[in-house]
């Protein structure tokens, strides 16, 4: 059994043989701008982390087309269960960079009020971008449960759950895929195969001939797409989303891509990624490919691209200014949101912490740096 060759729409030279656009020029430019915004957010966060102003970040260079192409196939009433390398999906649907930046700084306007590490976003508007947790694959069956609720109410919504190649080895991938197929739940499973789970290469992750083929055994379609081709990802997603909305059940999409940076700001990929591989993938840069496509439609010049990127940088720089000036969460935030109502033992512990702070002053900021 073999899964077909990766679906491609935009050739490396930017041409789109046989492609009939289903997006307006304005929508195409929105996709492009979102990819630039991801890149600008990344570039700025990397500098913030290296200069010690934030503790941690997760680079996205190289995988922008997966995120934006996938998000473009969803409606605002659909739900996204993201991994930690998916925030382009949130940006595409209108989450404001400043609301993401509040999380990067862990300040009081962060939706998690500084309780989570950076890049662990949570949004309910303008789309459900479900609170990210660090353990791998746990969100996959949750997406299936949320989709079951949609199905049970007769809604035509879908859940997208996104994970990496490493995620396919997790408990949650197996249970999520199995439950979704049995229930014919309206879910799309998006495996962004970027070649490495932190440092573990795919050949040490699975003996399967692809990740997509795993779908066959669960009883659902599996497809492979060129993950650096925004329109190919979108095309595969549109088919999967339509199938899910119409009661046809789940689909597994494997998007083949490559992360051009470390797993996180704490990672040094030169220790495990051969330079030739990086060089080869650099030539397939998803943003540059989309630019060539836009240029072929007279929608892009290098000057326009540079100006748009600078506009993204300006927006995100303003977000940094605002987020950095926003105060840290109050001490109270440690003790709230554990339960709907604060129970007596937590209330007592909180009161003791407030009293101690009043008597002896605040705790000094630890030297905690993540990690190692």
């Amino acid at each position: 059994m073999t899964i077909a060759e990766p679906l491609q729409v935009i050739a490396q030279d930017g041409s789109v043989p046989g492609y009939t656009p289903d997006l307006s020029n304005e929508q195409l430019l929105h996709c492009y701008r979102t990819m630039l915004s991801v890149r600008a957010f990344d570039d700025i966060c990397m500098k913030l982390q290296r200069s010690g102003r934030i503790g941690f970040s997760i680079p996205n260079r190289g995988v922008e087309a997966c995120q934006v192409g996938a998000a473009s196939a969803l409606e605002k009433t659909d739900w996204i269960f993201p991994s930690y390398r998916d925030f382009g999906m949130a940006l595409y649907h209108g989450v404001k960079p400043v609301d993401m930046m509040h999380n990067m700084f862990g300040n009081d306007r962060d939706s998690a009020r500084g309780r989570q590490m950076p890049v662990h976003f949570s949004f309910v508007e303008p789309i459900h971008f479900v609170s990210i947790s660090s353990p791998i694959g746990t969100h996959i069956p949750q997406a299936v449960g949320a989709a079951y609720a949609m199905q049970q109410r007769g809604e035509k919504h879908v859940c997208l759950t996104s994970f990496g190649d490493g995620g396919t080895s997790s408990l949650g991938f197996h249970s999520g895929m199995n439950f979704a197929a049995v229930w014919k739940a309206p879910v799309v499973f998006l495996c962004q195969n970027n070649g490495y789970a932190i440092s573990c290469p795919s050949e040490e992750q699975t003996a399967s001939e692809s990740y997509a083929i795993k779908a066959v055994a669960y009883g659902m379609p599996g497809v492979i797409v060129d993950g650096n081709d925004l329109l190919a990802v979108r095309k595969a997603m549109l088919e999967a989303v339509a199938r899910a909305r119409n009661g046809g059940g789940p689909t597994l999409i494997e998007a083949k891509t490559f992360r051009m940076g470390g797993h996180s700001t704490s990672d040094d990929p030169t220790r495990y990624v051969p330079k030739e591989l990086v060089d080869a993938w650099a030539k397939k840069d998803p943003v540059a490919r989309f630019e060539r496509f836009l240029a072929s439609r007279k929608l892009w010049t290098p000057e326009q691209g540079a100006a748009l990127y600078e506009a993204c940088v300006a927006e995100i720089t303003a977000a940094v200014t605002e987020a950095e000036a926003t105060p840290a969460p109050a001490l109270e935030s440690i003790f709230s949101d554990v339960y709907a109502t604060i129970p007596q033992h937590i209330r007592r512990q909180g009161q003791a912490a407030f009293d101690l702070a009043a008597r002896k002053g605040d705790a000094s900021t630890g030297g905690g740096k993540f990690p190692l």
Partner: protein
Amino acid sequence: MPTLTLVQAVNDALKTAMRRDKTVIHFGEDVGPKGGVFLASDGLTKEFGKSRCFDTPLSEDGIIGTAIGMAMNGLRPVAEIQFQDFIFPAFDQIVSEAAKLRYRSGGQYTAPMVIRTPYGGGIRGGLYHSQSGEAYFCHTPGLKVVVPSTPEDAKGLLLASIEDPDPVLFLEPKALYRQVKGEVPEGFYTTPLSTLRTVRTGKDVTVFCYGAMVPVCQKAAEQAAEKGIECLIVDLRTLMPLDEEGVLEAAKQTGRVVVVHEAPRFCGFGAEISAMIAENIIEYMEAPVARVTGFDTPFPNTLEHHYMPDARRVLDAIEHVAKF
């Protein structure tokens, strides 16, 4: 008022909840047409249809993971884990996900759900059908842990758990499923979580217990009374969040405390009660706190009656603290 067994009261609670709220659904392994291995969900699929009470694939991680997603998105799932011993593949979902969702999203996402599971020994179930794992879960902020010991409480506490906005682990003492019977009010009512139940009053020794240990302690207290020792028995009912003030008040009344549970002793729930008393009301105490618990060994099969606290062991502890 009808007289029901504890498992019938659980069944009654599920039916009551599902009749009044169509978002309540129940699922797990073999809970559909079979009605669950203990018949707790008997008749639910017939009355409410397959979309509201159904069998799942055999995956505890999948059961709890999907329940969390359902709870996030408007349903009130009641998930059954067939035996508490089988819950551990779902430990990550319970501890890292359900329990932390509200906290990590600032309340944007929550998991109002109930995990029902039979726990404890006394059915010759050996290592893997007998465990009492409450301590693992009581150590998890964001989770509630409830243990009924009577049919009336089983129904009232389960209905309260289903109504609760936070995830609840509902531990059902399987040894009592058919062993205890009692009058159970018809229709909807709730027994508030985080409240204690005074099982018996007495001025000499306070006994804290829960679940299947409650009738054991009652028997021990009767035997103690014959020897002139009157016990106050408190059924903790909700272990997390515990009514700590109520516990301290009950301990102060006698100054002599015995804590009883089936679970192993080390880092068990009794250790928390003991520490709480030592930290807060040591000046009221006439004797060291005594713990009667399972041993710090895996749960044995043939000799389970030696492993589980019985009236003999509880009485011994009561006598010890009474004459200290």
